[in-house]
């Protein structure tokens, strides 16, 4: 006799008020998801759909009635009757300060257009902390053939640590070390990657929002001045190596694969790949093979 399958308790719908608009949201969803449902643009740096929210960047903070301090939209769950303000002066002030603090201490020049848009939108002026403001500037780490770590671009969003850990790879080759402004991403005793537990899945690169972690191929082309995203095409395919069926996006420039990614919303990969899918593309363009 077939037995019933437990599909979880039914989720209740709750009504929350966001910027004066009543909206129905499923209990257990976050304020951020509810905001996105209303097409309210919310700046996020440490949040990503395929990772557990760590709510450390504080760019997404919103005002919730009854709360003494602002709350992170990315991790706070909606509650019935909650009144949320996403664009009050208080919210705009904190968002602006967060962006200014980050941009004054970190090289954010490789962040996407979205981040630059928020900088403009919130009127961030990182230079107002003065020319002597402490930064995380440091030399680039190039200790292997596959990827480059430039921690002067690191905003410490914890995403790479999460991707290396329980959220994707379970390798735990990197962690957050040190404390305060000296907190940084490191292997044990900052040993080189080949000495660490790293398996070169590249999932940390996949989630890095600032270009601190980068394919060596991309880094070399940027150094040579030949990297040009406007000249790149993206070809979707399925990884040829094993039977899992990971979807690959091959970024191609001048008829060469320069980078491999996978979509975050893909049901198999959730954006994550392994070393073969991520880096094992050389054979495609091998001269020997075509001869």
């Amino acid at each position: 006799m077939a037995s019933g399958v437990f599909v979880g308790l039914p989720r209740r719908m709750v009504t929350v008020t966001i910027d004066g608009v009543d909206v129905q949201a499923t209990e257990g969803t976050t304020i951020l998801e509810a905001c996105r449902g209303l097409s309210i643009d919310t700046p996020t740096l440490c949040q990503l759909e395929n990772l557990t929210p760590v709510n450390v960047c504080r760019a997404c903070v919103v005002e919730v009635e009854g709360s003494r301090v602002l709350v992170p939209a990315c991790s706070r769950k909606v509650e019935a009757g909650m009144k949320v303000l996403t664009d009050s002066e208080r919210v705009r002030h904190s968002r602006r300060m967060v962006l200014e603090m980050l941009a004054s201490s970190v090289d954010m020049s490789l962040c996407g257009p979205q981040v630059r848009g928020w900088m403009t939108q919130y009127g961030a002026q990182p230079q107002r902390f003065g020319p002597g403001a402490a930064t995380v500037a440091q030399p680039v780490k190039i200790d292997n053939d596959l990827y480059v770590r430039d921690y002067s671009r690191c905003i410490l969003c914890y995403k790479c640590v999460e991707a290396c850990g329980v959220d994707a790879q379970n390798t735990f080759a990197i962690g957050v070390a040190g404390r305060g402004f000296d907190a940084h991403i490191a292997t044990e005793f900052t040993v080189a990657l080949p000495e660490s537990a790293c398996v070169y899945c590249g999932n940390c690169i996949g989630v890095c929002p600032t270009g601190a972690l980068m394919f060596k191929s991309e880094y070399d082309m940027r150094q040579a001045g030949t990297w040009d995203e406007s000249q790149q095409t993206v070809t979707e395919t399925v990884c040829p190596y094993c039977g899992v069926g990971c979807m690959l996006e091959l970024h191609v420039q001048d008829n060469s694969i320069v980078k491999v990614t996978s979509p975050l919303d893909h049901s198999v990969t959730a954006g994550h790949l392994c070393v073969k899918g991520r880096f094992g593309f050389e054979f495609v363009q091998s001269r020997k093979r075509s001869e």
Partner: protein
Amino acid sequence: MDIRTTGGPPSAEEIAAVDGFLGAPESLWEGGARVEADDHLAYGGLATRSRRHLLLPVLHAVQDRAGWVSRGALEYACRRLSIPPADAYGVASFYARFALDERPPLAVHVCDDIACKCAGADALCDALEKGFGPAGVPGASGSAAWYRSPCLGLCDRAPAALIERAGKHHAEARVAPAGYMSLSAILGGRWPDSETSMHAQPRKESRLLRRVGVVDPTSIDSYVQAGGYAALRRALELGPDGVIREVTDAKLLGRGGAAFPTGRKWDAVAKAPARPHFMVCNADESEPGTFKDRVLMEGDPFGIVEGMTIAALATGCEQGYLYVRGEYPQARGRIENAIAQARAHGFLGADVAGSGLSFDIEVRRGAGAYICGEETALFNSIEGKRGEPRNKPPFPVAVGLFGKPTLVNNVETLVNVLEILNHGSAEYAKTGTAESAGTRLFCLSGHVRAPGIYEVPMGTTLRALIEMAGGLREGRSLRAVLLGGAAGSFVTESQLDVPLTFEGTRAIGATLGSGAVIVFDDTADLEQVLLRIARFFRDESCGQCVPCRVGTVRQEEALKRILSERNQSLRETDIALLSDIARAMRDASICGLGQTAASAIGSALIQLKIAGVN
């Protein structure tokens, strides 16, 4: 989990330190030598991984033995506990007391924090720098080094120093007051004489301090003779609901700083459906200028153990942790002794005082991190992780230590519980004001004649409290009082008549906080004090969230510019910047550290008109 380690092997001494704490490894899977069975059986599962919470005690064992934590030692600890080395390195590098570079076995930590500054700590550090080289650099002999330290909780005997000697016979000692002569002898290899304990002077009206300095803190018999464990007997008569009702009726508010109603917290934990429940006593007293919990732990350790037991039985906890800051070796020793004696006398263990209920306590030692006084950071620290605060909600009463409902109480709060049960909630609530019941311990330090702990009924004025501590020295006038420590705020002469209650201080925009009262007379260099506070928060920020990680640095930079800039308009730009930073830190930081990191500096600029601020 496969633990990949590529460093050199640990030394025999380091292995002895780790195995001395954990016991010898039983297989390759636990970091031992390979035996034939290891090829067929794996022991790397949940049981091994669930010992992760032992990481800090293991690191302490290594540090105590070797004086520092080498890569070999850390990786051996990782193999023993099945922790990835990068993860463990992140933990070890978080805590100031764990040294990850080789250093001499003898370490002299000299406090240069607020109260010690008032007592000449800067001159002492300058002299040490001349005599023994810069802080953190081993002297000529190579066997000792001195370090600057944040508040050591010895503000009543400032300036203070903590001495650590690593080795097979690890030892810790405190020197307070410390002078150049005493510290140079120690750096030269002479171990200090055993210190004389100094406690608060018990007065007739003492309640929370009634046993301090009266009862032998090392003997349970002495404690029982003085009426000890009567409160536990009363609690067992009343039953959990009755105890919670008493604590609620007494209107006890938490004494750790946040002033949350204790009865409500107990009730929430008692009713939390998830099991097991945990009880945590927060003894990580690290707020500069605060030393009340140290005095209680040193002078009345059995009282704290009894208070924890009552709290645990009322809220259904079977396991308790007391997290004491690493800088309190004597308090830790006294508490550990009290727990052992209570266990031997049947007041802890499987059958507490014949009640059939089970409760026991484990002492956990902090490792130099102010942030671990924040309750959720403290949980992470007990769990063997970096002391990073968690986002709330969920609150500890629902999701706390190891993800379970957890009751967290401050040391002083638990001693109040004994008073409530011994004398009844009605009697207890007669003292103090309607909104702030009972008495309160205040830690007086700085420029008063008799620094120390003073117990007064809630509602006593700040002026009266300073008078109790002997007032200022002859011919001096009051410049300011820092109420509530580095996270508190400055008040001035005109505010001295504020009644010391939660509501009274709130009305003038101040806070009682942890009960720290640091007094400054007209000789105090308040600019240096402000810079020290700014450095304190920069050093102690955990680094997790942007407003605090970057904000504390930007705050220090702006303050330095404000204090040195002579151009008024540039100074005003920086003052506006400082206020912008302060607002974001207060509004958007994850925890109380960031939220209060700008409060003292902001209040000083406004209240004391420093840098011409109006």
